[in-house]
């Protein structure tokens, strides 16, 4: 490991993770060579278009992958302990208690046939061994904390009686109820109205500041990520293509894909300009060739990009200068700005304002 060793082990350390999908026509890698770290209390964003594997990554952390998918290589370490690759029982001890998760659509993520109270108390009763009454009181105080009105009455209601924004607050309250060290938020605002989105993001910020909960925020919306995150990992077609601090990625994006994403973000300054979107779509599982997966959509692509996979290059950050570190681990290193691109490997830099 090239990075300077930190005092405490990272909260979450994903190393060279590979997830495969088994179909009738064979096995396909959905995620490949994923390296990512989350420090205690840190907020890390994962961004990319849909189909890049962001959700698969977040589900793999808790062993919630669909039956056809499995972790085939690599490992996930939580507080220096190795998480199992599969097995429901092994994951149960950390789910909810150590790592909690909230999902995209709060309407369908809650059980329609059980009351809010039932769903908000079952986790604390199981993990923290609270009595029914204690669990209810705990739930009420959490409902207050996340800004839900009339918390006592809510316990007796059913999910369909609440709005989407309220339900997402309920989901967050439930997720926080065992005081987890890491909260995985998978597109937590995508299904909500714009005004509600902002409120939910504010709530997540408050939680991070008050409780020191680390957050892994998954979103296709770079605006949401920029607003929230200390560090950002950009994913494309099952790989992390660039990782760095929010400033590094916004001020000096190195990967053409990151640049493309940035140009597609609507900002007040760009109000009158036409927003640029990246032409083409994310290649499907069977369309991923041997070379760079972005080459078909990249303005700078050369023959080499088509033929061989680009190396991971560290362009700045702790442990060395531009181009110093390559290979596995470089993307994971905390505080490093690293990129998976031939251009960066050659020149050590890219024109900042592409197009």
């Amino acid at each position, binding site marked *: 490991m090239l990075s300077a060793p930190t005092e405490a082990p990272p909260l979450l350390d994903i190393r060279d993770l590979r997830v495969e999908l088994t179909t009738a026509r064979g096995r396909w890698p959905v995620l490949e060579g994923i390296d990512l770290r989350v420090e205690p209390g840190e907020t890390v964003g994962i961004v990319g278009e849909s189909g890049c594997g962001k959700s698969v990554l977040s*589900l793999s952390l*808790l062993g*919630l992958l669909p039956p056809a998918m499995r972790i085939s290589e690599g490992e996930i370490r939580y507080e220096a302990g190795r998480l199992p690759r599969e097995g*429901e029982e092994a*994951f*149960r*001890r*950390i*789910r*909810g*208690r150590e790592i*909690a*998760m909230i*999902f995209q*659509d709060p309407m*369908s*993520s*809650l*059980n*329609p*046939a*059980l009351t809010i109270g039932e769903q908000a108390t*079952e*986790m604390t009763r*199981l*993990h923290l061994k609270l009595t029914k009454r204690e669990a209810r009181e705990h739930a009420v105080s959490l409902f207050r904390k996340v800004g839900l009105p009339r918390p006592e009455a809510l316990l007796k209601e*059913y999910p*369909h*009686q609440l709005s989407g924004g309220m339900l997402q607050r309920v*989901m967050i309250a*439930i997720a926080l109820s065992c005081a987890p060290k890491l909260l995985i938020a998978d597109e937590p605002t995508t299904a909500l109205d714009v005004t509600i989105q902002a409120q939910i993001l504010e709530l997540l910020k408050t939680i991070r500041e008050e409780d020191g909960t680390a957050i892994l925020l998954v979103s296709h919306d770079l605006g949401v990520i920029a607003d929230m995150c200390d560090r950002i990992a950009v994913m494309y077609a099952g790989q992390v293509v660039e990782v760095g601090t929010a400033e590094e990625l916004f001020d000096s994006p190195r990967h053409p894909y990151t640049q493309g994403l940035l140009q597609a973000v609507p900002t007040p300054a760009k109000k009158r300009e036409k927003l640029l979107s990246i032409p083409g779509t994310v290649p499907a599982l069977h369309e991923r060739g041997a070379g760079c997966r972005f080459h078909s959509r990249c303005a700078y692509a050369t023959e080499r990009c088509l033929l061989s996979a680009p190396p991971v290059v560290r362009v700045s950050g702790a442990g060395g200068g531009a181009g110093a570190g390559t290979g596995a681990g470089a993307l994971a290193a905390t505080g490093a700005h690293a990129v998976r691109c031939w251009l960066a490997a050659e020149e050590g830099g890219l024109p900042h304002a592409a197009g």
Partner: protein
Amino acid sequence: MNLAYAARRFVTLLLTVFFVILVTFFAFRIIPGNPALAILGTEATPEQIQELEAKLGTDLPLGEQFLHWIGGAAAFDFGDSLRYSEPVLDLIGARLPVTFSLALLALAITVLVAVPLGIAAARRRGKALDLIISAVTQIGLAIPSFWSGIVLVLVFGVMLKWFSVSHYVPWSENAWLSLRSLLLPAVALSIPQIAIVVRYLRTTMLEQLHLEYVRTARSKGLRPSTVYYKHVLKNALIPVVTVVGMNFGEILAGSLVIEQVFTLPGLGRLLITAIGNRDYPLVQGLVLLVASIVIFVNFVVDLSYAWLNPKIRLR
């Protein structure tokens, strides 16, 4: 629950019952030839026939007969049985508890056996247990319940001598012996019902397992059994309740036949004897009553479906 929905459903109930009254009336008026003659046979004297016609009311004009029948049915007065010379209602009342407890016991067995089996099949979908359950339920659907009744008698009554067959004991006398006397027929009755419910529950469970709330429940670290029995089952059971309720009619009808196998003194034996005796008022009354019970149960099931499903409840 929405009152308008209940009211609408109630109107449908009344309409269906009216239709049944219509059918039971006209069915026994289109009997070829003179019903009195059909009952008494060709050797009857004209006086005898006249007397019976007066008793049956068939000497009146058709419209008047129909009004009589509706009026009677509304007051639960179905006339007197020709054979027993007793009010039809009394005869039915004496035998209803037998058939009813048989049907209820069969229903209880169905639910107790089918729910765990359906869940087990859904949890192990595609595995050996699922395939075995699927094969066994196909066979269960194909076995006529009166034959499985005969086989049960053969095995447990004749060969093993565990149960004394053909000796009915009412609940009021001895609950334990009563249960013993009803157990075999109830098991025979429940076999096809179990098959239906298992298959249905398996399907609804599998539909539920794809839904996102299941993933949420798992992400909370709940035990798999909690996820299945609490989260999924509560949702999967809502449609299953309807199937079970709707099949109550089938169970009741099946018990009419199964009583014959076990010589239980219930509605079925009364009906078959009445048909044999051409005791038309009794047959008419029995059919109307059984059909009405079935229709009423379906009505209650419909309402309970609305009550069970929190989404419908408030609409």
